[in-house]
């Protein structure tokens, strides 16, 4: 048969990714070491557990939080009734960056990208009627993670729960905040101290709590390629493990509670291979580099969120299809938990209808598609195995380069990681602008129609209400006690002691996020981003 002409000169997984060949055979795998491991066996390429989703489906965990605690509490109860099996809290930016709702920089931000939490009072009401001893909660909080975890513990204890029984995750991944997302407060040094204080506190007092969720998601959102996302996340992971060891902790005492968080793009097979490679590389790092003995320390457990950047403002219903493919990639990649984005998120915060479609997408995959019925169904595909090996190589090359620079912290301080991601983001935009990268409805198959979908609006009165509520709290609480606990926070922050116990005392006295953060700013100073342009 004559050779067919192909429709483009070269095929690539992502814009600057791996070149894809026409067909893959067993011969393509010959150059790589053989990995015949089964699911549940080191290096866990196929799955960390032997039975995968046959024993337990992934946790369908939708990130939500907006406006006031009452409204968010109502949304949580709604999601719970709809069959959601875990909570994920979005905090508004002032809480994430250590400002109370009445701070001038909070103007316009109150209740916008998440729920407004100023004090323990807000945290208690957020969980009204939801027994914290019986649920699993993930909280996207980083710079102020120790304060917010202290509030969660205090709220749970007020409900009568024992802190050792609490199940959940705090993101607590400050390093990626300097690379992407940017909700840092302090410089990397003191921030690492707070991060590791939280991790060692959890190792001792909260055996079911994931003390960190080392995140690639936000780097991907900022423009990283699949390999960059994977490599920079594991490089940060190495920095955290090393910092814990430097604190005198034994690796197997904390590493089993380390968890991860990644994005899923629409390039399905590349994403599946990324997740497989990530599991393999991390287990080897933990075993070979850090001498972990407990297999649980070597298991990469992770949450996935379908990627927000891939959602388009144009023809928003197309996003349902994108999210479906991304969710499928996550499940075929054997994630532990998954958030599916809502189709309207390039336009506004998601409406209740859009959130429901997103959750239903996961349920259709779980119960109708059949992909969850066998473990790692794409394992053994020549192409997926080849890509897994290629991505593993790419990750290792980046980690070697970062080691040369002196580790992730140094690489961040020097701006290396930021520049790599920025370059990828710009390359991607140019590829879209030139049409080399097709985005349906954006640079091809455009219809020129205006989207007309109902979107969620945040009532502007919420800011006034929240500020009023805070004013009332500050008037009614025991302010002498607040002063005393804040002095305690300062004293501990200036010492080498773990900050967590004193923070629990402080929030129980209703000291606010802003007040506690101000004390810490006084001790640690504030970080100002270096110019990257």
């Amino acid at each position, binding site marked *: 048969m004559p050779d067919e002409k192909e429709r483009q000169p070269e095929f690539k997984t992502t814009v600057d990714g791996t070149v894809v060949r026409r067909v893959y055979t067993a011969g393509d795998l010959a150059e790589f070491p053989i990995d015949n491991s089964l699911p549940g066996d080191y290096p866990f390429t196929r799955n960390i557990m032997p039975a995968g989703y046959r024993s337990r489906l992934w946790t369908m965990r939708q990130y939500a939080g907006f406006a006031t605690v009452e409204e968010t509490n109502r949304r949580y109860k709604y999601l719970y009734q709809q069959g959601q099996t875990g909570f994920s809290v979005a905090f508004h*930016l*002032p809480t*994430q*960056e250590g*400002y109370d709702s009445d701070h*001038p*920089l*909070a*103007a*316009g*931000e109150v209740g*916008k*990208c998440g729920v407004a939490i100023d004090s323990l009072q807000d945290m208690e009401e957020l969980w009204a009627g939801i027994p914290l001893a019986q649920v699993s909660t993930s909280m996207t909080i980083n710079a102020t993670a120790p304060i917010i975890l202290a509030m969660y513990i205090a709220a749970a204890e007020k409900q009568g729960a024992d802190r050792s029984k609490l199940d959940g995750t705090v993101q607590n991944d400050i390093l990626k*905040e300097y690379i*992407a*997302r*940017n*909700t840092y407060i302090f410089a990397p040094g003191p921030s690492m101290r707070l991060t590791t204080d939280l991790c060692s506190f959890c190792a001792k007092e909260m055996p079911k709590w994931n003390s960190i969720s080392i995140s690639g998601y936000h780097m991907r*959102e*900022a*423009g990283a390629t699949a390999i960059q996302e994977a490599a920079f996340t594991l490089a940060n992971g190495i920095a955290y493990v090393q910092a814990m060891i430097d604190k005198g902790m034994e690796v197997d005492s904390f590493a089993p509670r380390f968890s991860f968080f990644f994005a899923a793009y629409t390039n399905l097979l590349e994403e599946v291979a990324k997740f497989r490679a990530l599991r393999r590389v991390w287990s080897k790092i933990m075993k070979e580099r850090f001498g972990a003995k407990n297999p649980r320390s070597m298991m990469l457990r992770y949450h996935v969120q379908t990627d927000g*950047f891939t*959602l*388009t*403002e*144009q023809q928003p219903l197309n996003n349902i299809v994108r999210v479906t493919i991304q969710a499928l990639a996550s499940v075929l990649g054997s994630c532990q938990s998954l958030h599916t984005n809502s189709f309207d*998120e*390039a*336009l*506004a*915060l998601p409406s209740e209808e859009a959130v429901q479609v997103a959750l239903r997408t996961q349920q259709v995959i779980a119960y109708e598609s059949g992909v969850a019925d066998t473990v790692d169904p794409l394992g053994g595909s020549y192409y997926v195995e080849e890509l897994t090996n290629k991505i593993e190589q790419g990750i290792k090359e980046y980690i070697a380069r970062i080691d040369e620079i002196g580790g992730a912290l140094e690489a961040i301080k020097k701006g290396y990681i930021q520049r790599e991601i*920025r370059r990828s*983001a*710009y390359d991607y*935009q*140019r590829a*879209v*602008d030139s049409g080399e990268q097709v*985005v349906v409805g*954006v*640079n091809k198959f455009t219809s020129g129609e*205006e*989207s007309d979908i109902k*979107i969620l*609006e*945040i009532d*502007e009165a919420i800011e006034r209400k929240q500020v009023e509520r805070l004013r009332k709290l500050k008037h009614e609480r025991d302010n002498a006690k607040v002063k005393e606990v804040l002095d305690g926070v300062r004293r501990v922050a200036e010492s080498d002691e773990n900050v967590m116990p004193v923070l629990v005392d402080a929030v129980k006295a209703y000291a606010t996020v802003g007040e506690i953060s101000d004390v810490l700013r006084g001790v640690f100073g504030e970080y100002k*981003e270096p*110019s*990257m*342009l």
Partner: protein
Amino acid sequence: MPTKKIRVLIAKPGLDGHDRGAMVVAQGLRDAGMEVIYLGLRVTPEQIAEAAVQEDVDVVGLSCLSGAHMALFPKTVGLTRERTDKGILFIGGGIIPKKDVPKLQEAGIARTFGPGAPIPEIVTFIKNNTGGE
């Protein structure tokens, strides 16, 4: 005589840290021959207005993805116009719901560019509305 380059100030008012769009646009405008000053994150409307005057810019680009644009964009335009009568062109970007666009236009934001806006479109808009090259 060489044509004077268009000077652009890009800033992110408020607490939002999503700077991919702002950075990509800044780089794109620079590659299109403009002089770009990036003011960075967590800046107040006052700081942006001050910088716009001091840097004598022709264009101010504001980016916000947190939903705080209605509180921050008009205020920035107002504070800048109090300080200078140079007809600075204001453009905005981010997650801006359609219903807010006319209100922002009334407040002086000449055009908003949403997710996926092509850089050449932004370049053309700026060139057409500043009379520069």
